Every structure is written in C-alpha cells, then in structure tokens.
C-alpha cells in the first residue's frame, strides 16, 4: 500500500489531471483567464511605475526593488490561482452542507478540499509571473548564481506555503460564523495588504502582518529575502516560526471541522 505522503501526492496529481480534463472541454476560457490575469499584473505594475515617476524610493524600496517585490506578488498570486481556487467556495459549500463526503474520506481533509480546483491556465500565469520576476531581477543588475537561485527557491516555496496556510486559517472563521464569508473578506484584505511591502505600514500593523496573520510570507518576506534586506539568521528563524504556525493552523482547522453541521441544502 502507498505511503500517506504518496497517497496525498497522487491525490494532487488527480486534481491536476481533472483540471486539465475540464479545460479540454472549455477552451475559450483558457485564453480569457490568462489575459485577464495579465491585466491584473499590468494594473499593479502601472500603479507603481506611475508612483515612481514622482518619487525615487518608498521606505527604502527603489523602483528596481519594487519590481522584484511585484514579481513575488504575482508568483504568489498565480499559485493561489493554480491550486487554491476552492477556497473561494468554502463558505457557500459549508453553509449548504456540501462537505459530507469530506468528513468520510481517509485522507487529510485540507488537502482533499482546498486543492480540488486545479487551474491549468494559471500555470501560464505562473510562467509569466516568474518571467517578470526574473526580468526584474536581472534588469536591476543582480547576478543569477546558484546561491541566488537557492534563495529564490526558498522564497517561492515560502510564498506558496503562506498562501495555503492563510487560506486555511481564514476558512476557520467560516465554521464560527456560518455564511459570513469572512474568509473571502480576509482573503481580499490580505491580497490587498500584500500588494505593498509591509514597511510602508505603521509599525504595529507591520508586526501584525509578520507574526499574527503572516501575510508577509506572501510577498514581503520572500522579496526582502532575495534582495538581502533581511539577514539569514532572521530569515531562518522566521521560516521555522512559520512552519510551526502552519502545523497549528492545520490542527485548528481539523478541530473546527468537527463542528460541521451538515445543513440541509
């Protein structure tokens, strides 16, 4: 029999396959979503490029730094688009009692639920996002040596984990406040918050985004890590902190799932 890890990897594989199968049927949608996401990137890029027409640096972030930061924002966003589309539906499905079968599956419910809507078109977005990130990095005159690549892998894995952990964390609110759609609200606020380096926020808010609701993992931390704005010691410490945070969130979610009411639709 497969190990638990292999089981979950295979489930992800099936989700990816199903996502592709879905797209085989709806082809127009593919282009449509990619284009629309590029518009999303463009609006972000324009906002900052226009801002930097009037200023040279914002809280120590130069135009070149900010481009790397935006690259991280896009990479993080694309990950969400690829894997975490189900998070948007959680509130409604919980309210309608559509999670019955989830309670009976012999696999981790977080993985079975949150990763079920794989989006192949977002992979193209990921490619575009990564290209922009690389362009931002290289055009600023930075080197692209193995050590840097290692840093990038670390940074990007962390933004991805950050996305998963926070999506799961926010969905816990739905158990407490049924149909409040709080998870969507927090997700939208977080997306908006992560659009700018936390340095621009007041100190308390920045601390909050670093330690309590670690939106910083989405874009600020990874960008600061590759740009060398934070030391390796702190980076390692923070990564460990966030791993522990993730474990706690997963536990908490499973506990909350016990209060699932299975409403009639």
């Amino acid at each position, binding site marked *: 029999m497969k190990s638990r890890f292999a*089981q979950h990897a295979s*489930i992800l594989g*099936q989700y990816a396959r199903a996502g592709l199968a879905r797209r085989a*049927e709806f082809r127009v949608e593919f282009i449509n979503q990619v284009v629309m996401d590029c518009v999303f990137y463009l609006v972000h890029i324009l906002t900052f490029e226009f801002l930097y027409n009037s200023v040279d640096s914002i809280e120590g972030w130069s135009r070149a730094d900010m481009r790397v930061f935006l690259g991280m924002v896009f990479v993080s966003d694309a990950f969400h688009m690829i894997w975490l589309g189900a998070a948007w539906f959680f509130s409604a499905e919980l309210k309608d009692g559509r999670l*019955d079968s989830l309670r*009976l*599956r*012999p*696999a981790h419910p977080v993985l079975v639920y949150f990763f079920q809507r794989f989006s192949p078109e977002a992979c193209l977005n990921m490619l575009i996002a990564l290209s922009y990130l690389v362009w931002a990095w290289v055009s600023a005159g930075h080197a692209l040596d193995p050590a840097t690549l290692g840093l990038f892998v670390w940074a990007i894995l962390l933004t991805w984990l950050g996305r998963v952990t926070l999506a799961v964390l926010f969905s816990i609110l739905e158990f407490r406040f049924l149909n409040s759609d709080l998870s969507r609200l927090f997700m939208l606020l977080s997306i908006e918050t992560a659009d700018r380096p936390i340095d621009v926020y007041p100190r308390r808010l920045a601390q909050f985004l670093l330690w309590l609701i670690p939106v910083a993992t989405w874009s600020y931390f990874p960008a600061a890590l590759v740009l060398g704005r934070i030391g390796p010691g702190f980076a390692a410490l923070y990564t460990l902190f966030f791993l522990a945070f993730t474990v706690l969130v997963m536990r908490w979610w499973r506990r909350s799932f016990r209060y699932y009411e299975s409403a009639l639709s």
Partner: protein
Amino acid sequence: MTSRAEHSGKAPVGQPVLRCQGLQKVFQTHRRDPGMRGLLRSFVARETIEVPALRGIDLSIEAGEFVGLIGANGAGKTTLVKVLTGIVPATQGRSELFGEPSFELSDAAKSRLSIVMGQRSQLWWDLAPLDSFLLLREIYRVEKSDFDLRLEQLARRLAVTEQLRIPLRHLSLGQRMRMEILGAFLHRPQLVFLDEPTIGLDLVSREEIRTILSEINREQGATIVLSSHDMEDIENTCRRLLILSEGRLLYDGDLVKLRERLFEKRAIELHLEPHAAEPDPAVLAELCGADVQLLRSSAGALSFAVPAARVQPFLAQVFARLAVRDLAIERTPLDVLVRELFQREGEG
C-alpha cells in the same frame, strides 16, 4: 501485506460492525417572524429553536446484513445515517463503527466505509465519472490492478460501461445514481450506507438498483444499510427492517415476521364514476367489516386497507355495490404499516 485482507470487503460474519445506544440528535435552527418587524428583531436577537431529529436509537448491525431503513420524509433517516457515519456528532448517546466511536473514525475505519446520498452527488458534475473514480482510487489507496478489475465488473453489472467517459451532467438521473453507487463500492467497503438512492427514479431503474445491491451484498458480504421512504424499495431486498418515525425506532426486526404479525395489507384506491350518486354510508359500512379499514374518502375517491388474502372477495363485493371507474392497488403502504404499528403498541 495487509492489503488483501483489507480489501476483501468481508468482515467476520456475525460480529457487529455498527452499534449505537441511546442515540439522540437535536438540531438548532433559527426562526424569524414574517414581515418587517420580524426582520428587524432577527437582526438584533434571533430566536433559536431546537429540532429533535433522533430521540434515542438503539441499534446493532452485524457484518453481512442487508438492512432496510424506512420512514416518512422528515422521520430522521438522513440524520441517523449522518450520526452513525460521524458526519455530525450525536447530541447524546454512543455510536460505534468497527468498534471505533463514529465521530472519531480513524482513516483505516473510513477506508472500510462508504456512503451514497440520493440527493447529493459526490462525483464531479462537469467531468466524466471515470475522472472522479480515479480520484477515489487515490483517496482510498486502491491498487491499480484491483481498481481496474473492480471498475470493469461494477460498470458491467450496473450497465454503465458506455457512460464512464461522458461528463456526469450529460447523464440521466438513473445513470448518475448508478455512477454514485459504483463510486461507493470501488474500494470494497465493508459497510455501505445508501440514503434514498432511488429517489426520483422510475420503477424499472429502482428495481434494477435494488437487485444489484442485493447481489453485491450476497456475493461480497458487504453490510448494506438502505434507507427509503418507500416500502417497495425495502420489501424484496432487505431481510431486516428498521422503521423510523419521528426520530424513534418503531420497529427493528425481520421483515417477514412483521408481515405475519400485521397480516399483509393492500391499499386499494377506488375512483367512482363521476356522475354516480354518493356512495351510501350503509354500503361503506358493509364493505368495511372487521378487517377492512376505510382510510380516506373524498368526492369520487375512496381508499381502503384490505388484508391481502381478502382482496379478491373484497373487490367482487366492491364491483357489485359501487360504480367503479378505476382502481389502484398498492402493496403494504408505509403509512398503513406505521399506523398499525402504533395501534399495536397502544394495545400492547
């Protein structure tokens, strides 16, 4: 290698796979008065009301049994299934599956369990059933060879081989339900709950599904709990019958014995000629006699409960006395059965 034993689908016959005691479930919902005032009030403080769905259920089901769970709409069938499988916790009482508390099932226990909800699909709506089954294969860690074999067998038996690669939303209701059943049996579960799987299906489909379930139960020894609000689904399939009414088990035992105890009844519905005179009360009284009951009477339509053995003489009598335009005979209707059971309980 434990997989062979685990996937054989057989638990030792004669041991309880399911046990519950004093099971109660109370749902909490909110009520709001109609109109603008109720609206404003609900905004400030909502009134919580409690809906007791299960009021103390004791039950034990052994491996290999085929149990029919029957009850009117709202009797608590779905709730019972949800509590027994641990989808929701019981408010009071204990429930165990495979010796584990229902609400704390381990993954190993979950792998031996399966559930089909008639009103809720577990398969992807926009994809071919096969895609959903492949996912189930990974979730339940079914070996590929075993899966292929099983899929082929089940699909053939359920007569849906042709439809495996067609998106679920393009299938008919009956085909969809067959797919749900297929998905539920793929991992050779030892205990399967089917909650009103025949709802909305035509007579032929229902009959076929019942037959298939019986076969699977017989051949693989899987324990099956089949719920329905229609006696007919249970009558020729299940050996053991549970009757649920308003959250209580009204009857738990052999279906054949129940029949003997209650005599077998038929509900006979008569439609009279539209222009005929109202039936004489004296005639009706004569028709009823000792063992025939008048269930309902309205303009032009009468409904009787008649012992099976008395149907022929009764009909002869009816045709002699009344101007009958049309008639329908229904076998052991649930409401008659429940009424009888209540009467017996009241007497006993």
